């Protein structure tokens, strides 16, 4: 009791109240009951934590030229023959520590993934919400565009948008805007999923009494949409968002691997895999396989979290 009171004074009663409510919720119960999900959550947390705090946690600073030594190039992982315990996962062709480059690379991958999902969510929610709320020609126009876009696979569309945006940029500045280009390409390629879900949920919510009541007392349309309907349609959006994060991270890695993403000077996981691929045939497998492993684990963990969230929020499966 005393500890609780102390904590209340330090962080406020509201936080403790919310935490207690969360611990008592069905969501937390189903989370605790699924060991796979707990492991996935821990792995995701560790990877994101390591990536976000890479400048503090990484054993080396691989992108400061003064701190790397070309004599350290092509060192094998520490536990194999020719390894060095200063470099746990070995070094690349420039003598950069693989573990550190993976942490910094994961940071960019996760940043681009989150930003692309945020952009797709923003466009999808705005268009889906307004399309569901104001029916008529506007709704059919928005949904028809979404349908046409969904017939073309997302990765192809992202590649195309990437190419168009790069053509619009002034020459010689392409590397400076590389991550922005990726965010736009992946975000624009994936909004229709959000728009569809939000629209169909909005259509259901719109016919409920609380919306009619709000309209009767003269609440403006914009307020009804954003403050009354939006909170009630966010559940499925979060599910698609989590699964979409894994897809966005893979899409970013794919574009970077294809050479139209982040440049080797500020590499993401995909760029690292592409650069390392050149050394696969000469036997330096660690330069490409460790970043690939990091990408696989990250996307798998996020995917498992998304699957759990989808099942936990779906009342039919309970």
């Amino acid at each position: 009791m005393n500890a609780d009171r102390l904590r209340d004074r330090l962080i406020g009663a509201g936080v403790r109240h919310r935490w207690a409510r969360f611990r008592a919720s069905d969501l937390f119960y189903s989370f605790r009951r699924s060991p796979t999900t707990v492991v996935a959550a821990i792995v995701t947390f560790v990877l994101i934590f390591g990536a976000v705090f890479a400048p503090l946690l990484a054993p080396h600073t691989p992108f400061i030229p003064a701190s790397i030594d070309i004599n350290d190039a092509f060192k094998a992982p520490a536990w194999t023959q020719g390894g060095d315990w200063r470099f746990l996962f070995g070094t690349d062709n420039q003598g950069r520590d693989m573990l550190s480059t993976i942490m910094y690379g994961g940071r960019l991958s996760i940043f681009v993934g989150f930003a692309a999902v945020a952009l797709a969510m923003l466009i999808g929610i705005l268009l889906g919400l307004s399309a569901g709320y104001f029916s008529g020609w506007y709704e059919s126009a928005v949904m028809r565009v979404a349908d046409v876009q969904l017939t073309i696979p997302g990765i192809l569309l992202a590649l195309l948008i990437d190419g168009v945006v790069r053509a619009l940029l002034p020459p010689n500045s392409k590397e400076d805007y590389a991550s922005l280009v990726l965010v736009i390409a992946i975000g624009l390629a994936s909004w229709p999923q959000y728009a569809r879900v939000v629209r169909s949920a909005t259509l259901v919510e719109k016919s409920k009494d609380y919306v009619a009541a709000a309209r009767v007392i003269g609440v403006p349309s914009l307020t009804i949409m954003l403050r009354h309907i939006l909170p009630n349609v966010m559940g499925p959006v979060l599910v698609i968002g989590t699964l979409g994060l894994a897809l966005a991270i893979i899409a970013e890695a794919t574009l970077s691997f294809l050479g139209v993403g982040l440049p080797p000077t500020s590499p993401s996981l995909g760029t690292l895999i592409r650069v390392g691929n050149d050394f696969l045939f000469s036997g330096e497998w660690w330069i490409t396989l460790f970043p690939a492993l990091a990408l696989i684990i990250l996307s798998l963990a996020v995917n498992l979290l998304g699957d759990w969230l989808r099942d936990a929020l779906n009342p039919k499966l309970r």
Partner: protein
Amino acid sequence: MLAFIVNRLLQAIGVMLVVALFAFIISNYVGDPINNMLGQEATLQDRAQLKKDLGLDDPAPVQFARFVGEALRGNFGISYQMKRPVSHLIVERLPATLELVFVAATIALVLGVIGGVFTGLRRNAVSSRAIMTISLVGVSLPTFVIGILLIYGFAVLPKSCVHGVHLFGALLFDCADVAMISLPSFGRGDTVDIGAWQSGLLTAEGWRHLVLPGVTLSLFNLTLILRLVRSEMLEVLRTDYIKFARARGLTDRAVHFGHALKNTLVPVITVAGIQIGSLIAFSTITETVFQWPGMGLLFIQSVQFADVPIMTAYLVLAALIFVVINFTVDVLYAAIDPRLRADRVAAGRA
């Protein structure tokens, strides 16, 4: 049925017009075609003359109509980077991509159906569980990572001899034998010209070069079809007519393949048809990993160099392929399952 086909055809044309509009906007307003053709040093008169010759002074709808007309004749202009007509480049590259997609689709369909039937019939066997677990990995790995892993496993490792001992199957083969079973990991190998069609399907080297890219491209769809066939089999095996067939004393073979498998194939045909589109999309990635000289590699290079004519041509061509596939699948589906016709037309109009 005729009304259904006409309805779907009109929708398909509508989609193609929207795609053409996007392609038109990209090709006219992204990058400066005048600059790209004349270079920076051209005089103002030259620019004005070329602008007039190209019809860039005309109103936008006239230009769009001309763009559609040219596109229908297969003319998408000249590649900025390679200085050759885009249509020639695409015709050269198309056979490589189509052969790769054909091989991948065949692998996915044959192995997927066999694996699905096997895991469906023996659902508790250890081998079935192993197949299902491996298939989960196949779904979650990105295509290019699968390609790299296959290259490492089948092209690099078999050739790596350390001190005369082989790391991979050291007990079974000595180094020279293992090096022989390693698979090539880039290019198409020997090709044979049949008219304008360069084929790799007629030489042994061509087939050897197809193995790794074909497997890489097929893996995702293989797992998809395997899982679909398995769940459909499980569903069908529970139905009354299967119980009745067993009660009549038919052999397992007749029940499983004559009655059950036939009824699982309708959804499989639909999914397989739609997935051919995704094979074409993902062939861009596979072609880059294996340096396969197809359309996808051409497209990736055009994105790298912002080569707008190739990008627009690829966009229109890819959309055309998807629309044709979707249309065919819809019509086939309606032909197979008459219940869908009435609903589908209504849904299309709504």
